[in-house]
């Protein structure tokens, strides 16, 4: 059965081909939908089969399905550990181990339901077929990403998902904003990839392979050799991990590269659910966990990861407090939750990170889909201030959203509670210096999360409808294709956490132990791991977190039950804080300024080139610089390089004309010249002798 692993990504690929090439322009939405959902559903089922087969086998060893040799570019002289030249061979294959099993399940499961949901959501859109082609394509890429048996294969998927997100964000390409957002996303990701690539090259240069299996053994073998200084004043391990982590921040929207995710909400809501909440954005976390072996050799960078995660989580949660656009709220919440995962990964609690990843996939997807249903019902309205009172009108959606909200807020026994608790206790128990600060940040974030989520809930569903009454009538509950996924995911959001009930509550943290083989500690001092706290302390922590969350929820409901007036009042109380949050700490502007200050006067020149460059944000700033640079280099081309050539041409021309002037046509002059030449000849010789 597991031999069929290769078929899992191939099925959606077939869907892509079928929808993209075979069925013509006028294929009915039904056909398209059937092909798309059929292929992804089949993939999901097959995945389940494979997973079951894998689990059933006693002592599940990693199952590496080598498909073909991808790149075999000759021999490469090795540096460091292994001397001599290694025959480089970069293969393409799929790997099944606990980690990828988890990811595989999440991706196929959530992916399928979102496909189904999209059928209803996208009904009647002009680009229906294109949409599903892209969506299937994304599924393929994501599967390759999580199943790839080496960094090369993974990178293939990595780039693929980036591409699909570019296409899907820019799905409504006739809106400039969408197109820009798409490009912004892709280029920010490219910046991350650029770091990631550097990391991979370093690995190849050192070990001559990119296969996970070989690498982990090689790393374990070389051990401390990797701590020797390498570049940028870092050890080899440090260099590599830093590169990898930068790549991760790009994909997973962490500080400093998070700016693209909020804009990415320009895409259709199911896309936001699938790509920008459940799966793609978690790839960064996956990467870090996948590379845990080498991360463990770079404690410094690991700490960095933890801190970046914590700060991102806190800040993003803060921004989410004041958003008025429902999807933006969710977007920032996603960023914040991803921060959580990185916090865990940085602390060495890899299992916890993945655990939270999985649960988050469920409830965040659920939240997005619910939000999508709301938006769908309101005919595209996204502004919370024009909602309200939908509890009665959209009961199913409202309940689904509620469940999701409870889950993310971390209320017992919803999924979020368990995973979040795992992370917090990891923070508490961690040996990393300043781990209490991290813990506090986590706790505070938890509170904020609960607050903004229920703020949104209250604004959307409680109180009275504030939108323009005209759009009230067509309000309708979503069709079953949208409702069913809501339901399924809601179940997931409730139950997914139960896999990881810690021992302290009498559960046997199945999840954690399942992942053991992947995240096993290397020999040497292990960073703190789950279950080192005393049971009492752990339970205390749980209660504390729970209390904070509940408190936050109540506050939120109290403030926003009847609308945003009280919230506004609160905002007036702390104007500076409010401003700070509303303007997202002016990060975009700061990026802009920092990039542009490099050449502020010049940017106006650059702007001449393209209105595109007059735009805010990191990418556009960079674009502006680049455009300016390109303008300069254009000048250089025309005036210096060509200039030299033209100059010589001009000189030659002058020369030629003067030579012609010598040719006066007067025979006497010629005779004189002739005699003179002879004379000069004689003189030169006389002198030279």
């Amino acid at each position, binding site marked *: 059965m597991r031999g069929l692993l290769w078929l899992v990504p191939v099925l959606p690929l077939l869907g892509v081909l079928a929808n993209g090439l075979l069925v013509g322009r006028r294929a009915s939405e039904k056909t398209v939908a059937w092909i798309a959902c059929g292929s992804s559903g089949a993939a999901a089922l097959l995945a389940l089969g494979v997973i079951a087969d894998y689990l059933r086998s006693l002592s599940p060893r990693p199952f590496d399905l080598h498909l073909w040799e991808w790149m075999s570019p000759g021999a490469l002289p090795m540096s460091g550990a292994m001397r001599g030249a290694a025959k480089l061979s970069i293969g393409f294959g799929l790997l099944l181990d606990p980690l990828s099993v988890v990811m595989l399940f999440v991706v196929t499961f959530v992916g399928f339901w979102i496909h189904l949901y999209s059928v209803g959501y996208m009904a009647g859109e002009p680009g229906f077929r294109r949409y599903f082609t892209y969506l299937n394509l994304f599924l393929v890429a994501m599967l390759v990403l999580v199943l790839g048996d080496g960094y090369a294969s993974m990178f293939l998927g990595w780039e693929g998902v980036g591409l699909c997100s570019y296409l899907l964000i820019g799905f409504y390409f006739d809106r400039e904003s969408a197109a820009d957002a798409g490009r912004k996303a892709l280029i920010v990701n490219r910046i991350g990839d650029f770091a990631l690539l550097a990391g991979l090259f370093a690995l190849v240069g050192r070990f001559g392979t990119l296969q996970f299996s070989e690498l982990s053994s090689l790393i374990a073998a070389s051990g401390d050799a990797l701590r020797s200084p390498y570049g940028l004043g870092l050890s080899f391990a440090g260099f590599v991990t830093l590169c990898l982590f930068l790549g991760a921040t790009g994909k997973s929207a962490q500080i400093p590269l998070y700016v693209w995710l909020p804009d990415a909400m320009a895409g259709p809501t199911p896309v936001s659910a699938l790509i920008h909440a459940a799966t793609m954005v978690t790839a960064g976390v996956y990467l870090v966990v996948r590379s845990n072996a080498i991360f463990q050799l770079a404690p410094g960078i690991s700490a960095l990861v933890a801190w970046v995660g914590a700060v991102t989580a806190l800040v993003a949660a803060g921004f989410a407090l004041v958003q008025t656009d429902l999807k933006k709220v969710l977007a920032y919440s996603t960023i914040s939750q991803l921060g959580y995962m990185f916090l865990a990964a940085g602390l060495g609690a890899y299992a916890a990170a993945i655990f939270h990843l999985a649960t988050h996939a469920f409830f965040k997807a659920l939240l997005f889909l619910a939000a999508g249903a709301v938006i769908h019902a309101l005919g595209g309205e996204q502004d919370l201030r024009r909602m309200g009172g939908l509890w009665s009108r959209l009961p199913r959606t409202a309940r689904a959203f509620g469940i999701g909200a409870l889950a993310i807020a971390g209320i017992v026994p919803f999924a979020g509670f368990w995973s979040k608790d795992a992370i917090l206790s990891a923070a508490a128990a961690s040996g990393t210096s300043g781990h209490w600060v991290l813990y506090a940040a986590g706790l505070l974030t938890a509170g904020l999360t609960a607050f903004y989520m229920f703020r949104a809930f209250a604004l959307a569903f409680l109180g009275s409808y504030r939108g323009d009454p005209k759009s009230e009538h067509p309000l309708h509950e979503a069709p079953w294709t949208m409702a069913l996924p809501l339901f399924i995911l809601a179940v997931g959001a409730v139950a997914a956490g139960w896999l990881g009930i810690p021992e302290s509550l009498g559960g046997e943290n199945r999840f954690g132990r399942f992942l053991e083989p992947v995240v096993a500690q290397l020999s040497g001092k292990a960073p703190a791991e789950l279950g080192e706290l005393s049971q009492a302390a752990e339970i205390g922590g749980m209660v504390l977190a729970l209390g904070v969350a509940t408190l936050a929820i109540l506050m939120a409901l109290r403030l926003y039950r009847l609308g945003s007036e009280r919230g506004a009042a609160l905002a007036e109380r702390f104007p500076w804080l409010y401003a700070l949050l509303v303007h997202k700490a002016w990060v975009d502007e700061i990026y802009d300024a920092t990039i542009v200050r490099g050449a502020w006067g010049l940017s106006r020149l650059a702007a001449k080139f393209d209105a595109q460059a007059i735009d805010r944000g990191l990418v556009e700033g960079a674009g502006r610089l680049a455009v300016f640079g390109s303008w300069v280099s254009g000048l250089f081309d025309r005036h210096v390089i060509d200039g030299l050539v033209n100059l010589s041409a001009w000189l030659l021309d002058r020369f030629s004309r003067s030579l012609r002037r010598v040719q*006066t*046509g*007067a025979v*006497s002059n010629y*005779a004189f010249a002739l*005699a003179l030449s002879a004379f000069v000849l004689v003189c030169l010789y006389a002198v030279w002798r």
Partner: protein
Amino acid sequence: MKPSDLASVWNVGTEHYLALSLMLFGIGLFGVINRRNLITILMSIELMLNAVNLNLVAFSYQRGDLLGQVFTMFTITVAAGEAAVGLGILLAMFRLRQTTRVDAAQELEG
């Protein structure tokens, strides 16, 4: 004057002839590059040839072999031929331009 110089003055040797021919040559050259009347130019060329003849004859005397004189015969011949052709060209020019001034023929240039 030192006696030696006196001697060199009074016993005339090859060098005297060469000096003379050099002067003739120079004068002829000057005529060619200075005068613009074709006839005068032709005459100056004859002067130069004569200078050469002097050279040759002087050398042949010094070396005591006849080659120089033989060569002189040829030079004279050539001089005659060139004069004939030169004058022919001059006539043609005169017919075309009613002048023998070479600076009248200055259409081709550049």
